Each structure stands twice: as structure tokens, then as C-alpha cells.
């Protein structure tokens, strides 16, 4: 394995000045650049979430319907396209995927930088709609409402298209990197599970995003030329739009969750000081989830007017995707069995992930059950379910991952006490927010409602209070990161005693990651 040289030179001080960052092709620096902008967009999306909960705190209107719809659209669009989809792959994937496989960089470093600029272009275009007519379609852009509404749909759709291109280029880079740049001895059976997860995600990004691209282009054409493919007034079919949209957007939820599962695999092995149980099963279940995710999108459309047969087929296939997910859950548990478990904040977040993802998973099975989903579809039950997966899963893992790798990325230690406080606030706040929403959904409260009938009021009040607790929790997490950056607590090369390659090099890593090309002779979790 690679040697640790405690030289003063690292990727952060290798070159100096803003310009050296804006023109960098170092994957680690690009990862940090993504981190800065994605955390900023997360703040924007979070503010929208707080406003939504403010409106729903009490029955009766606070904002008018249009304003509320715009807030909810920005919350969805920002969180999906600008935070959760790029989040883990672009920040942690960029930073650690090459190091994990013993490479000096990704396959196409300049393309990697270009992806960042493309992403920024799309993101700025998306934000620019805030200063024009805004947008009120929901992040799903369902036709024909998105064709008829008088808001900046074309701009937003083009922004999503451009960010999609960035996503494709990142995915392409990772696929080729994993195929071609592994260090000698680093076989596919020895790459860390985080790499397997990001690799599966990359495949999804490359295969699914182009279809979103053409769908959004057609929607833009629909508004400018009235092409008619998705417009019933011109002989088109709005349900076909939903098919095209979910062909991307269902795999996209795995784009969001698979990398989170990768982080959890790393953290659980490291903090249990034990080799991962069922490496092969976890690795192939990532690929399996990725593949099967293309066959199940119709479960978003059980009551959309698609045929009964299609609904049943999609329900069946969706059940199949539950199996690899269950496999992962059991494998993580088995890894903890007879381990030597310590509870630093990354592990707390990983365990929080297991807790919340278990609930998100079982409610997913309820929603996949076609007869039951008829009642739950488009109610708060769905809202609660996907927040359990997207926030309870992805964001918990992202926060845990940032803590886990913080010493490696910056060479400093964060404040463990406040990190634990952030976990407690986020975890408790999360359950207080979203568990009542399951009940609201079962009671029949529809989603995307600016106002609700008084019967739903008390649970909504609880939910809003929980949401503000999460908000405080994430602000504390932000404080932990900033305080850690300013602090003088120097991190050792391997503070957690983990075994993967990134911990064998100095913190922070040098410009070229490895002084000598590492030669790999064993698997990634050799805790013997």
C-alpha cells in the first residue's frame, strides 16, 4: 500500500489563489467546489422547506395559492436537481473515487471541471427564474399544466436539461475511471463498496438522464412550437409524458440513494472494525438495484390512467427491487455482529440511516402494493415515504460521510460534541416532522395543498415544529464544518482506523494522491 509522507505539500496548498481553484483539474478540488455550491443550494432549498411548513402550520392561508405552489416547486426542483442528485457523487465521489481505486485522477480531468461549469450554468439559469415569472409546475413538470401555465417553464426546463448534461458527464467520467484507472492488483472484487455504489449510480446517470433530456426538450418545444406530443388538445398523450419523465426520475431516486448506501457500507465497516459481511452481495445488489430500477417506473402512475395490466406488471417488478435492498440492510446488520463498535458521529449518522431507511423501505413496499397505493397515491403518505428515503437516507448519509471524511479532506478534526448535537437534532426533528405525515396521508390529506381541512391541523403543527428542529440541526452541522475548518486540531492520516486506500495516504492528500503508484494485494476491509 501507499506510503504516508508527512510533507507540507498537499492538494490545498499545492497552488494558491482563486484562479488556481477555478481552473483546477484536480478531482479533489473539484469535489470541494461542488461542496461549496451544493451546500449553498441546500440552504436555498431548506429555506423553501421552512416556508412550506410555515404555511402549513395552521389551517387557513398565509401565502396565496400561487406563491405556495412556487415555493413548493423551488423546494422540489432545487433539492432534487441541485442537491440530492449531484450531492454525494459530485462531492464525495469526485474526491474519493479515484483515491479509493488507487488512481491519480479521474479519467477525464478537464471534462470533470467542465461538468462543474455546466452544472453552475444550469443552476444559475434555474435560480434566475426566481427573478422573472418564477415557476409553479412542481418539480415533475406534468403536462398539460406545464404547457398552459404562464410561468418561466422553458427557462427552468432548459436549466434542468443543462444540469442533466453535467450529471451525464460526471457519470461518464466515473464509469471510465472505474473501468480503466484501477491500480495494479485493484480488481473489481477489491474496490470499496462506496466505489461500487457510485459506479452503479454513474451507470444510471448515463442511461437515464438522456431520456429526461429529450423529454424536457420536447416540453420546451411544446411551449414554443406547440408540437403536441404531450398535449391532449393537439392529439398528444399527457400520460406518455409521465412515462418518459419517470423513466428518468425513478432511476433518479436510486441515483440519490445508492451512493448513500455506499457511504453507509464504508462507515459501518470502519466503526465496527470488522470486514464487511457479504461484500459480493452488497456490490451486486447495487448493480441489481440499478438495473431493475429501469423496469419499475410505472409505480408512480398507478392512478394516472395507465392500463390496469401495466399497473400490475409494474407493481410486480417493484416488489423485485425490494429484495436487493433488503439484502443490503441485513448485510449491514451482520457486519455489526461481533464487531467492535464505537459511536463517533459518522457512525451515529450511519445508524440513523439504517433506522430511517428501514421505515422508508417498508413504507415503500406498501406503496408498491397496487391496491393500497390507490388510496395512498399523492397523499402525505407518499411525501413522508420519500422524505424518509431522501432525507433520512441520502442526507443523513451525506452528512455522516462529510463528517467521516472531513479529517481526510481538510486535515483537521471537527468538534465531536457539536457533531453529536447536530445528529440528535436532525434525527429527532426528522421523525417529528415526517412520522405524523404518514398518519396524515393515511387519513387522506393530499400533497401539494396550500391549505387543508381543519381535521388535519394538529398533526401538521407537530410536523412544522419538527421541520424547524431539522433546520436548526443542519445549521449546527454547518457550524461543525466551519468551526472544524477554522480549528487547529490537526487530523492524523487515519483517525478511525479504517482500511480503505484513502486512509493510507496523508491528510489532506497530496496533489497526485499517491507518491508511488499503490499495488493492491488484498480486499478493502481486511480487519484481521
Amino acid at each position, binding site marked *: 500500500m501507499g506510503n504516508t509522507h508527512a510533507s507540507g505539500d498537499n492538494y490545498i496548498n499545492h497552488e494558491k489563489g482563486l484562479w488556481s481553484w477555478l481552473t483546477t483539474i484536480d478531482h479533489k478540488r473539484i469535489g470541494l467546489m461542488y461542496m461549496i455550491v451544493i451546500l449553498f443550494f441546500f440552504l436555498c432549498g431548506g429555506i423553501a422547506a421552512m416556508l412550506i411548513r410555515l404555511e402549513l402550520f395552521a389551517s387557513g392561508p398565509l401565502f396565496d395559492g400561487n406563491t405556495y405552489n412556487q415555493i413548493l416547486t423551488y423546494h422540489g426542483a432545487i433539492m432534487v436537481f441541485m442537491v440530492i442528485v449531484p450531492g454525494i457523487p459530485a462531492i464525495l465521489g469526485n474526491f474519493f473515487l479515484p483515491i479509493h481505486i488507487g488512481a491519480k485522477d479521474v*479519467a477525464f480531468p478537464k471534462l470533470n471541471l467542465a461538468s462543474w461549469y455546466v452544472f453552475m450554468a444550469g443552476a444559475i439559469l434555474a435560480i434566475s427564474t426566481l427573478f422573472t415569472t418564477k415557476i409553479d409546475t412542481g418539480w415533475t413538470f406534468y403536462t398539460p399544466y406545464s404547457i398552459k401555465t404562464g410561468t418561466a417553464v422553458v427557462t427552468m426546463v432548459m436549466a434542468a436539461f443543462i444540469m442533466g448534461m453535467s450529471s451525464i458527464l460526471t457519470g*461518464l467520467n466515473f464509469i471510465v475511471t472505474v473501468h*480503466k484507472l484501477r491500480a495494479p492488483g485493484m480488481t473489481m472484487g477489491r474496490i470499496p463498496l462506496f466505489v461500487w455504489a457510485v459506479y452503479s449510480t454513474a451507470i444510471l446517470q448515463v442511461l437515464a438522464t*438522456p431520456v429526461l433530456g429529450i423529454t424536457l426538450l420536447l416540453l420546451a418545444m411544446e411551449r414554443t412550437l406547440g408540437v403536441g406530443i404531450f398535449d391532449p388538445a*393537439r392529439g398528444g398523450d399527457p400520460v*406518455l409524458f409521465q412515462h418518459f419523465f419517470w423513466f428518468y426520475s425513478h432511476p433518479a431516486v436510486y441515483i440519490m440513494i445508492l451512493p448513500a448506501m455506499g457511504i453507509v457500507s464504508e462507515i459501518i465497516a470502519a466503526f465496527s472494525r470488522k470486514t464487511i459481511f457479504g461484500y459480493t452481495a452488497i456490490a451486486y445488489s447495487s448493480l441489481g438495484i440499478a438495473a431493475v430500477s429501469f423496469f419499475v417506473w410505472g409505480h408512480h402512475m398507478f392512478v394516472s390512467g395507465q392500463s390496469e395490466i401495466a399497473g400490475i406488471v409494474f407493481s410486480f417488478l417493484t416488489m423485485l427491487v425490494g429484495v436487493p435492498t433488503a439484502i443490503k440492510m441485513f448485510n449491514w446488520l451482520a457486519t455489526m455482529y461481533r464487531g467492535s463498535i464505537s459511536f463517533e458521529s459518522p457512525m451515529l449518522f450511519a445508524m440513523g440511516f439504517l433506522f430511517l431507511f428501514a421505515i422508508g423501505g417498508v413504507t415503500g413496499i406498501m406503496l408498491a402494493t397496487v391496491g393500497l397505493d390507490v388510496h395512498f397515491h399523492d397523499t402525505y403518505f407518499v411525501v413522508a415515504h420519500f422524505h424518509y428515503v431522501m432525507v433520512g437516507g441520502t442526507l443523513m448519509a451525506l452528512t455522516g460521510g462529510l463528517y467521516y471524511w472531513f479529517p481526510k479532506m481538510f486535515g483537521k478534526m471537527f468538534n465531536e460534541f457539536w457533531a453529536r448535537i447536530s445528529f440528535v437534532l436532525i434525527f429527532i426533528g426528522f421523525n417529528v416532522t415526517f412520522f405524523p405525515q404518514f398518519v396524515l396521508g393515511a387519513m387522506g390529506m393530499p400533497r401539494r395543498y396550500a391549505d387543508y381541512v381543519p381535521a388535519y391541523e394538529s398533526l401538521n403543527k407537530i410536523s412544522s415544529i419538527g421541520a424547524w428542529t431539522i433546520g436548526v440541526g443542519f445549521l449546527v452541522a454547518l457550524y461543525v464544518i466551519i468551526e472544524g475548518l477554522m480549528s487547529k486540531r490537526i487530523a492524523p492520516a487515519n483517525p478511525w482506523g479504517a482500511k480503505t486506500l484513502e486512509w493510507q495516504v496523508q491528510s489532506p492528500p497530496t496533489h497526485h494522491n499517491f507518491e508511488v503508484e499503490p499495488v493492491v494485494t488484498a480486499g478493502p476491509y481486511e480487519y484481521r
Partner: protein
Amino acid sequence: MSTVNQTAKGEHHYAHHFRDAMHEFLTSKEGIWVFMVTEILMFGGLFVGYFIFHALYPETFHEGASHLAWKMGALNTVVLIASSWTMALSIHYIQRGLNSKATMCLIITILCGFIFMIVKYFEYTSKIQHGLLPGKFFHYHEAVSQQLPLYFGFYFCMTGLHGIHVVLGMSLIGWVLYRHLKGEFNPHYFTAVEGVGIFWHIVDLIWIFLFPLLYLVG
């Protein structure tokens, strides 16, 4: 910026994170192929829509096809096939070190692209004159089928997106030609030509399907 390794001969150069020039070549080529997958899926979405609406409104698509100038379409097919051939030949000549022949091939490829776009221009202007336009701009008065605007929606979206790719491809070939004239390519290093070539063949490949589906069977 990236450090570029220079070997003793000074002709193989490759970025620092690759083992050798061949490693870089194969890696780049795989990147191109992955990118081509995204092209297939993007155009594929349009084709899926085309098939569905063709099956729903067969008369519309038949009527629509009868308005297209199939002879021009056929001419463009021949032009693109020829250009694909010259593109493949340019790589063949660079690999054999026949640089001036390769230059000729690249120039002919770009010219074919121009011919294609000129023919397209005449086709488009004739459609526009007759009011055979997509959706809300459609104002052709002798339309039999009610969904004819939808057909022309498909026609303009599919050929339009393809046309954008032709222009993109021509610019890329222009860039490759410029580098070639500067003498950057040799039998051991021609990655950019190979990649742009694969892109250009994809453009040809898509037209091979567009032509019969839009112009002939309808």
C-alpha cells in the same frame, strides 16, 4: 494544469494519470462510447414517441410522409453515407501516415455536411412556405388528417435535433482538421479523430433510421 509526459521520441504524449499512450487512447475511446450511449437514448426517446403515434394515427403519418420530398431525403442519405466513408478513410490514412490524403478526406467530410445542410435548407423553406409547420404554426389548408400538425412536430423535432448534431459534428471535424494541419496526429496518436469519427457515424446512423421512417413509409 495537467502535466504532459513526453517520451524520448517526442511523439507519444499522454496525461500524467495514464500508464502509456495506448492506455490513454483506450480510456478516451471508452469515454466516447459511453457518450454515444447517451446519444442513442436521447434520440431513442423521440423514436419511441414516433412509433407510438405512428401506430395510433397511421393515416396521419402516411399523409405527412406524402408531403416530404423523398428524393431530397434520399440524396441526403447518399451524402451522409459518403461522408461517413470519407471520415473512416481519414483515420485509415492517418494510421498509414498518409497525411495529405487524410486532409482531403476530412475536407470532403465537412463539404458533405454542408451539402446536407443546404438540401435541408431547401426542404425546410418549402415546408415553411406551405405552412407545413409544427403545432400552433401549422396553417396548411388542405390537410385531411386532424393530427397533421403533430406529424410535422415530429418531423421538425427529429430532423432539427439531427441537424444540430450535423452542425456540431462539422465543427468538431473542423477542429480535428485544424489540429491535423498543425501536424498533431500521427499513426500512434489520433484519439481526437477517432472520437469525432464515432460521433459523425452516429449522426449517419440516426439518419439511416430517420430517412425511411419519415420520408418513405410514413
